[in-house]
């Protein structure tokens, strides 16, 4: 389990190194694929892209194909790795759940000040839906791209029907991928989502943010780590901790020692930070 509460730093580990590598490999190779895919269309000369500094090669379809292949290698290998690895590990946090559509609407409404967000898991309901959509588009692009690649190397005379399907799935996939990318950027631009940006670069998000917005997720981690919820709760400064708080579960005998150590940690950590914990960006 890589997810971990680092209470003294007011952080929680959201993504493992492996997940960060997967994300950025797909993102960077995907952007190269969009760019070189566009250059596979006869646009560079017509739209004077070749006159831009550094883009003189953009009308050379063979050079673009070379780059498209290079990026497609990373994209396909990592995309399939992602499905296989997390499938094998049984990690389902990003898969859509029942009721996600309705919950998404509630969350989106809350962005514009209508109502409150429901307590959420690690991923937001619309994030799970977006993930499924993106995964589908990526899979379509990979499958159709593989057919096109096979045709280029081994079967220039393959069935025209199959080829037309592959080509149009690829072209439509391209448009959808591009739109999905824009939607992804738009989601990041929304203020409530800002704290997650640091997560995709460093793997960690602020603990108080997570507690505030992803309370269900934190509960899961706490259960996993056997940390009583309130103990690691930094949103309530430790000094003023209310000992009579009803929700505080009694620590299990076996973990008493560990918990006390953690609490030590929390106190000194909070003092080190020297600033009041924030609740929202």
């Amino acid at each position: 389990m890589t997810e971990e509460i680092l209470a003294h730093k007011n952080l929680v580990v959201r993504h493992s190194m492996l997940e960060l590598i997967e994300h950025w490999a797909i993102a960077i190779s995907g952007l190269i694929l969009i760019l070189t895919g566009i250059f596979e269309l006869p646009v560079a000369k017509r739209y004077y892209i070749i006159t831009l500094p550094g883009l003189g090669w953009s009308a050379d379809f063979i050079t673009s194909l070379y780059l498209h292949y290079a990026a497609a290698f990373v994209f396909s290998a990592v995309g399939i790795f992602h499905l296989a690895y997390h499938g094998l590990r049984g990690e389902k946090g990003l898969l859509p759940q029942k009721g996600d559509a309705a919950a998404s609407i509630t969350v989106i409404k809350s962005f514009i000040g209508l109502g409150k967000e429901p307590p959420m898991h690690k991923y937001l309901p619309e994030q799970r839906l977006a993930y499924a959509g993106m995964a589908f588009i990526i899979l379509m692009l990979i499958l159709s791209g593989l057919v096109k690649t096979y045709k280029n190397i081994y079967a220039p005379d393959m069935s025209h029907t199959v080829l037309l399907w592959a080509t149009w799935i690829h072209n439509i996939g391209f448009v959808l991928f591009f739109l999905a990318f824009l939607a992804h950027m738009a989601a990041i631009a929304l203020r409530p989502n800002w704290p997650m940006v640091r997560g995709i670069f460093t793997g960690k998000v602020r603990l108080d943010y997570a507690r505030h917005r992803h309370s269900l997720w934190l509960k899961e981690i706490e259960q996993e780590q056997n940390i009583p919820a309130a103990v690691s709760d930094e949103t309530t400064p430790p000094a003023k901790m209310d000992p009579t708080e009803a929700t505080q579960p009694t620590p299990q005998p076996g973990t008493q020692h560990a918990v006390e150590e953690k609490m030590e940690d929390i106190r000194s950590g909070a003092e080190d930070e020297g600033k009041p914990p924030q609740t929202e960006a």
Partner: protein
Amino acid sequence: MSKKINFNLTRRSFLKLSGGAAALAGLSLPKGADAATDRQLATLIDLSLCDGCKDLQAPACVTACKTINKDKIPEVVDNIPEPWPRKTIEDWSKKKGVFNRLTPYNFIYIHKAQIEGKTIFVPRRCMHCDNPACATICPFSANHKEKNGAVVIEQNQCFGGAKCKDVCPWEIPQRQSGVGIYLHVLPGFMGNGVMYKCDLCDERLKQGKMPGCIEACPRKAMLIGPRRDIEKMADERARAMNGFIYGKTENGGTSTFYVSPVSFEQINKTMQKKPGQPDMKPDVKRRMAATDPLGKSVLAAPALGVIAAGVLNWFAGRKDQVKKEEKGND
């Protein structure tokens, strides 16, 4: 399905054009064989035979091709949309008669070469390459290769972006603006007409007829037949005249074999590459071949992904196990 018919037709054409059964001695046609190579056709252009039809107003092959394809291009719209931002419009609809170069209305022309006092006539058209970049990287797959080897542009699927022309070493396909589906999508921003070139008379082949140019040639300078046989015949003829072959290795191999008593180096020197007038550089490379190794690694990428997932999952499983044991020992 049409495979059988093709064979029959091929045999018939072969007999006809090689001047009877005698000329065919030693050649055998494939019998029921299904391998792709057996279905492929090829053409032979014998430059020792072509005389450019110099006594005719226009070469017979050119006239035949023009006649067959005269109604191919639909009527061009009156106001051809001006493409943005580069304003290139290519309109040949008022110059349909031109036959000294390739145009959307002219798929074959005869180049005249003077070499050491001799005149050589070189019919030029699409070579129907073995792995034609013009077809494989058409973004709409409008240009595609048939099992019989014909490289065909479907005019109702083509946007006229001219990518095929750019990647063809001979820049064979020619554009007619103001026709095609781009008119119904985003004219002005996307597409610019339809690309046209020789399609080896694929329709006629499917009807059991010979390509028009081959049928019309009074000198029998051009032949069509099963690829294996035509290739053999080209070798034999070249050997007999102590001559040269063009089209066997060029652009990664083609299904058009030129046989000539003078070298193609010399012939090429008489050619200046101009729009619609290709040169004939010997051993011109198939540039896309350089991308094949990387393409093969792309095909292997998903398997690599699965293997990596299996390996990492195994390690992760081990780590979990160790953790559990440690917890148990606490």
